[in-house]
C-alpha cells in the first residue's frame, strides 16, 4: 500500500510541469496562435526561477521570477509573430533556441548551488490518512495550483463571454475582427498567459522537483507539453487525462524495470508516448470524432485599418 502511495506521489510530481505548461499553450492555441517556443520559455523559467529563489531564499519569489521570465519570452514572440506578422513556426523555434542559450548564460553562475525545495502541505490527521492522505493533503503548492489552473481555464473557455471571444479569435479571426474585437490584443494576452504558465512550469523543476539548476534541465518537457495539447484536441478535460496518463506511464515503466519484468527498457521508455497517443485517439473517436483544432491556428492575421 505504501508503494502505491509512493507511486501516485511520483506521478503527480512528474505530471505537474507538463500540465501547467500545456494549460498555457492550450489557451494560446485556442486564440489561434501556435507558439512552439514552450521549451525555451520553460528553461528560462527554470533558470530565472532558481536564480530568484537562490538570491532571496523564497520559493514564492522564485516562482514569480519564473513567471516573469516566461512572460517576457512570450512577449518577444508576440512582438515578432503578432506585431510583425512573422511566420509563427519559425519564430517559435527561434524562441526555443534563444531560451536554451540565454538560460545557460543566466544560470551559469548558479550551477552547483542548491536550495531547499518547496515545502509539502501538512495538515495533522488529514495528511496522515493512509494511502490517500499524502496524495490529497501532502503535495507542494504547485500541484494544487496546476489543478486550480486547469479548472479555471476550463471555466474561462466554456463558461465566460471572454472565453467565447478568445475561441472566436482562434476559429475565425476575420469574423472576430469584423465584430469589433481587438484580435491582436486578445492574442497577445493569450500568448502572455501561455508564457507565464510555461515559465511557472519551468520554475517548478528547480524549485520543487530537483532543487538545483543545470543548463538544459527541462530536457524536452516543453515539446511534450506541446504534443499533449494536440493530442487533447484542444480540450482542457482531455489535457488533464493526457498529462496524468503520460506521467503515470513514465513512472510505472521505471517501476516495472525495477521489478525486472523483462521487457526491453527501450520499449518501456517509449511507452508513455505510445499510451498517451492511443488513449487520446480513442477518446476523441469515442465522443465527437474529428479534429477540433482552432480553425485559424497558426495563421497570420493583419487587420485592415
Amino acid at each position, binding site marked *: 500500500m505504501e508503494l502505491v502511495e*509512493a507511486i501516485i506521489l511520483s506521478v503527480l510530481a512528474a505530471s505537474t510541469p507538463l500540465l501547467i505548461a500545456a494549460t498555457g499553450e492550450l489557451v494560446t492555441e485556442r486564440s489561434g496562435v501556435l507558439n512552439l517556443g514552450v521549451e525555451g520559455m520553460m528553461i528560462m523559467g527554470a533558470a530565472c526561477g532558481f536564480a530568484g529563489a537562490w538570491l532571496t531564499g523564497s520559493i514564492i519569489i522564485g516562482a514569480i521570477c519564473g513567471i516573469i521570465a516566461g512572460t517576457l519570452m512570450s512577449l518577444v514572440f508576440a512582438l515578432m509573430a503578432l506585431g510583425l506578422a512573422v511566420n509563427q513556426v519559425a519564430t517559435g523555434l527561434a524562441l*526555443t533556441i534563444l531560451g536554451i542559450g540565454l538560460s545557460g548564460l543566466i544560470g551559469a553562475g548558479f*550551477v*552547483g548551488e542548491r536550495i531547499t525545495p518547496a515545502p509539502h502541505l501538512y495538515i495533522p490527521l488529514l495528511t496522515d490518512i493512509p494511502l490517500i492522505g499524502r496524495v490529497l493533503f501532502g503535495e507542494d503548492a504547485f500541484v494544487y495550483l496546476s489543478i486550480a489552473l486547469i479548472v479555471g481555464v476550463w471555466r474561462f473557455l466554456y463558461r465566460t463571454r471572454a472565453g467565447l471571444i478568445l475561441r472566436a479569435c482562434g476559429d475565425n479571426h476575420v469574423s472576430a475582427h469584423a465584430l469589433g474585437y481587438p484580435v491582436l490584443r486578445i492574442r497577445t494576452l493569450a500568448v502572455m498567459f501561455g508564457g507565464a504558465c510555461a515559465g511557472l512550469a519551468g520554475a517548478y523543476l528547480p524549485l520543487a522537483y530537483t532543487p538545483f539548476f543545470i543548463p538544459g534541465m*527541462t*530536457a524536452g518537457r516543453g515539446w511534450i507539453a506541446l504534443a499533449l495539447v494536440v493530442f487533447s484536441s484542444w480540450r482542457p478535460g482531455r489535457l488533464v487525462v493526457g498529462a496524468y496518463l503520460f506521467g503515470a506511464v513514465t513512472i510505472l515503466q521505471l517501476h516495472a524495470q*525495477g521489478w525486472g519484468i523483462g521487457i526491453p*527498457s527501450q520499449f518501456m521508455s517509449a511507452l508513455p508516448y505510445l499510451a498517451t497517443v492511443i488513449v487520446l485517439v480513442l477518446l476523441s473517436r469515442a465522443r465527437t470524432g474529428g479534429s477540433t483544432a482552432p480553425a485559424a491556428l497558426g495563421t497570420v492575421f493583419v487587420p485592415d485599418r
Partner: protein
Amino acid sequence: MRKTLVALAAGLLLAGSVSAASAADKLKVGFIYLGPIGDLGWTYQHDQGRLALEKELGDKIETTYLENVPEGPDAERAIEQLVRAGNKLIFTTSFGYMDPTLKVAKKYPNVHFEHATGYKRDKNMSTYSSKWYQGRYIQGLIAAKMSKTGVLGYIGSFPIPEVVSGINATILAAQTINPNIKVKIIWANTWFDPGKEADAAKALLDQGADVIMQHTDSPAAMQIAAERGKLAFGQDSEMIKFGPKAQLTSILDTWGPYYIARVKAELDGTWKSEDTWGGLDSHMFAMAPYTNMPDDVKKLAEDAQAAITAGKLHPFKCPVVGQDGKEVECKGGDHLDDGQILGMNFYVKGIDDKVPGK
C-alpha cells in the same frame, strides 16, 4: 561514450562560444565538448582538465574550446573550424565524435587528434578512455557493506558495454561481501534528464533499495537519496554538495594529467598515435573522499583501491560466471582481457534481470 545532452538546436548555433586569445608562436590546442562546461558532470570534468593544462603549460600553449557541439555530422564542421583556427592538437571528448574526428584527421594529416572513448585510430588520431569499472568495483564493496536491505539500486543510461561492465563489476564486488546481494536496475535511456533520473531514484528507493548508484550525469539521484536519508554514489564529478550526508564516494574523471602528458609530447615532437585505456594506476580517474561510512568500510575501500592501483586485484578476475551459470572464457590469464570488458554485453550470475535488447 556520451550521448546527446540537451542542446536541442545548438547545432544551428554551432559556433557556440569560442574562447581564444591570439599569440603567434604558441602551440594551439583545441577541445570539442558535448555539453555546456557548467553541466557539473562529463563536460565539466573535461574542462577542468583543460584548465589544469593551461595552468601547467600556459606559457607555451593556448587553448580553445567549443561547447554544446552535437554528435554526428555537425561535429565535423566544428572540428574543422578548430583546424582552420590553427589548432595543432585537438581533443574531441565524446564517443559520437568518432567518425567526424576520423574524417577530419584524414583530411589534415599534419594536425593531431585525440578522441575520447572511441575505438577508431589513425596515424594522427589517438584514443583515450578510463577503466571506470575499477571504481565501480570499489563502490560495490562499499555498497554491500552499507546496505541494510541488501538491495542496491542502479540507474543506467544506455545498455552499452561501458555501463554493463560497470554493473557487473559492482555486483562481483558486492557478492564478495554479501553473496545474496540483489540489484535493481532501471535504464533511463538518456545521459541527462534530471527529472527522469530523480524519478528513477525514487522508484528504486520505493522498491526497497537503500544505496543508489548511477551511470547518468546529473546530481538528481544523489539529491533524492539525501532527501530520503539514504546513501548514493556520485558520477563523473564531486556531488557531495547535493548530498553531504548521502555521498559515499564518486568516480572523478581527472583528465588533467593525461592532457598535460599529451601536450608535452606534442611540444617535444614525440607525439604519436596511441590507444590509452588508463585506470587508477595512471590517474585517469580518481575516487572522491570516502565519506558517510564507518572506518572499517573506509579501510576496506582504501585497501581495494590500493590493490587495484598496484595491479594486485582485478575486478574481473576469473572465474567470472554468467547468468546462465557457465564460466566466461578467461582470455586474459587470470582475468578477463580488455577486449572482453570493452565489449561486455552480458550480466554476471546474481543479477535477476536481462540486458535490454538481449
